[in-house]
């Protein structure tokens, strides 16, 4: 299943609920467009909820990195929430787990934004 995203707002933070696969092609484009649209609207505090993302490939990892740096370069913050074991393991072996701010509780994740 390709990636689907739904946005909701909690205390000024935009939570993007993602489900499906973030892979080369449509999945990566959907994520890129979702982040780009939020930045265009001036929403720069973004929490990506990856709880229903069951698969991600190297292109998807690249897209997460791109989203992270793009938001950061515009003075915003992007954090990750609810990683599945597969995604968690991928971020571990690529040493990106310590680059991203990864959270497993939505309430504390929202409070962690400056």
């Amino acid at each position, binding site marked *: 299943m390709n990636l689907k995203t739904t946005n909701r707002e909690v205390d000024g933070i935009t939570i993007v609920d993602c489900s499906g696969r973030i*892979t*080369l*092609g449509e999945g990566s484009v959907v994520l890129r467009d979702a982040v780009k649209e939020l930045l265009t609207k001036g929403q720069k505090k973004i929490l990506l909820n990856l709880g229903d993302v069951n698969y991600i*490939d*190297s*292109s998807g*990892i*690249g*897209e997460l*990195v*791109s989203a*992270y*740096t793009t938001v950061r370069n515009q003075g915003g913050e992007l954090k990750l929430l609810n990683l599945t074991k*597969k995604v968690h393991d*991928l971020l571990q*072996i*690529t*040493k*990106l787990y310590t*680059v991203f701010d990864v959270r497993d509780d939505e309430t504390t994740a929202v409070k962690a934004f400056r």
Partner: protein
Amino acid sequence: MLMSEDRRSYTLDSTLETVDNAEQAASEIAAANGFGDDECLQIAMAVREAAVNAVLHGNAYDPEKKVRLDFERVKGDLIITIRDQGKGLDLGKIPDPLSPDNLLKTSGRGIFLIRSFMDEVEIHPSKTGTEIKLIKHVHGAPAGGKEASQ
């Protein structure tokens, strides 16, 4: 598709659909050869990454160029070979994605993931294309290549 008891071969177009099909075939064949769920996922991901390299970087989506995918069971090993018809990968240009300078790069992790997931990886570039051989040692009880679904 060619098929024999211990070998399956596919000749695929240089499309994104090929990448998905290669991944799916790898997952099914790995399961049929006795690999557990985690290993099936690793093998499928490694094949996906190799197929992406073949389609995107090797053949550059050229409709005239094909990707050859072979699965072979040799004694205790599942051997997967992916061959493209591109200009040949420059091994000296494969980046180390764990280097601090590369950590925030948006690409360059495919070969690294392949090496992480497979027991042995051989890359043979030439002027007529790149061949990558992926080897996973079978630890579980094999179900036999004939039972792999198509």
